């Protein structure tokens, strides 16, 4: 009973906030309305005993929407309520895409034989999920994950403000072999990072 009420309330919240995304006039409100919609879906997943997926949805969506919202206002810094914006574009195409995806998803839901037996409480859902997703490829997947992470950190380290030979803005010029001599090693194209801004100011 309680679960049903919660389910309907969360579904209503998900649909309402999803609708608000297209009705509000501020980028930030649109972004975080979308986030609320996803969080409601994550909470529904929790009700369905999909603990990890539910919580991870909240976690991922919060970070993703934050980054998306930040980049939007970095490029279009329209302040909160001062300058309303129209959030909807390309009406014909979007109406068509919306109708098509609604029909497609409805057909998929109605024609699929969904399982009806409820999950026993206290099941090892986390373990089952891992085995189901990765199965025998666990080692390969984990190796790839760690490699990707190392690449990410490496890229950030390389692009950070302090380069190997002093400040990153000064270029990556190694010092000379002798005092004041020519830079050691490969020749670096001088000032490549600064060539394009001269004219504008």
């Amino acid at each position: 009973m309680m679960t049903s009420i919660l389910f309907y309330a969360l579904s209503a919240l998900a649909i309402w906030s999803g609708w608000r995304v297209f009705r509000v006039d501020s980028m930030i409100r649109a972004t975080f309305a979308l986030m609320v919609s996803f969080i409601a879906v994550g909470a529904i997943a929790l009700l369905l005993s999909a603990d990890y997926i539910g919580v991870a949805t909240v976690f991922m969506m919060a970070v993703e929407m934050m980054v998306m919202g930040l980049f939007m206002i970095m490029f279009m810094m329209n302040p909160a309520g001062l300058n309303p914006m129209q959030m909807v574009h390309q009406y014909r195409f979007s109406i068509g895409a919306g109708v098509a995806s609604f029909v497609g998803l409805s057909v998929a839901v109605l024609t699929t034989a969904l399982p009806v037996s409820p999950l026993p409480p206290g099941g090892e859902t986390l373990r089952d999920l891992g085995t189901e997703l990765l199965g025998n490829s666990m080692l390969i997947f984990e190796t790839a994950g760690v490699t990707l992470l190392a690449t990410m950190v490496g890229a950030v380290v390389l692009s950070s403000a302090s380069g190997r030979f002093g400040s990153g803005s000064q270029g990556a010029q190694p010092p000379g072999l002798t005092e004041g001599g020519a830079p050691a090693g490969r020749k670096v194209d001088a000032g490549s990072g600064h060539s394009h801004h001269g004219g504008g100011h």
Partner: protein
Amino acid sequence: MIVVLAILGLFAFLIASIWAAATLDAVCRGWIAGGGTVSPAFTPLRTAALWLSQQRLTTEAPDRLNALLSIAGYFALGLVGLALVPIGPDTTLIALPTSVVAWGACESLVVVVVFLHGWSPNAPLALIGAYRYVAIGLPIMLLSMFVLIAAALPAQSLDLRDIVTSQSSVWNVIRQPLGLPLFILLGLSLTLRGPFDYADSADLAGGTSVEASGPDRLGWQIARLVMLTGFSAVAASVFLGGYLGPVLPGPLWLAIKTLAIMTVVIGLSHLLARMPVARMMGLIWIGLLPLSFLDLILAGVLAL
């Protein structure tokens, strides 16, 4: 019945700890400033009463809804953190088999609410604070993920209850010496304090709360202290064995350990200098993140 008692206990503890944190803050500040503090225990109450009786001013065309949501959300996230913490074997208000991940979700939502708090007043200094906080808040969260996964390894579970139980012989703070210091840095960031206060700092005349007046200011400061309580309780459970301890009842041990973590966080926030944001970014990615990897590797080797 037990649930009602637990909820009442939670709120009683919350009020006590908010008051204790505000007092500790005043004492610590007074000690470092070298001047006497006059009744540090009552000054926070009086200031709160003053804020309550001041006018609520708004800027031109603010985002009122998001301003309210940010304060309420920050408060609620601290509360969720506190409710995730087990107060006894198998006793927690929010029983989730993935409660560590749920706390991670709270951390990422903190970045969102602090950003909204800086965004909503529609003012330059507040917005700069919001930008900067996101830039630092996201990488510092990565760090906490690795530290928390390391703490979950010996328990072989993402459940805070199992993590506390797994510390019955030796606490995680000893088993994983890098974990707690790194996690406390995250706490400084989550509560906008000292070296990680990139949102509400003095160089922005108060940053995201520069335009807040009266009840709004009070709400935000209380929410910060609620988050401090929630964070300290989680840290005490993950690294100091939570409710485990001899003689005294479990919840009391948890309260003592929570207060201890809180004291360390408050002390560090007054003692350590804050560096410019680009320098901090370098420190996090080049220094702290590899340290958290090391913590994870050590924990993994130990668990094998």
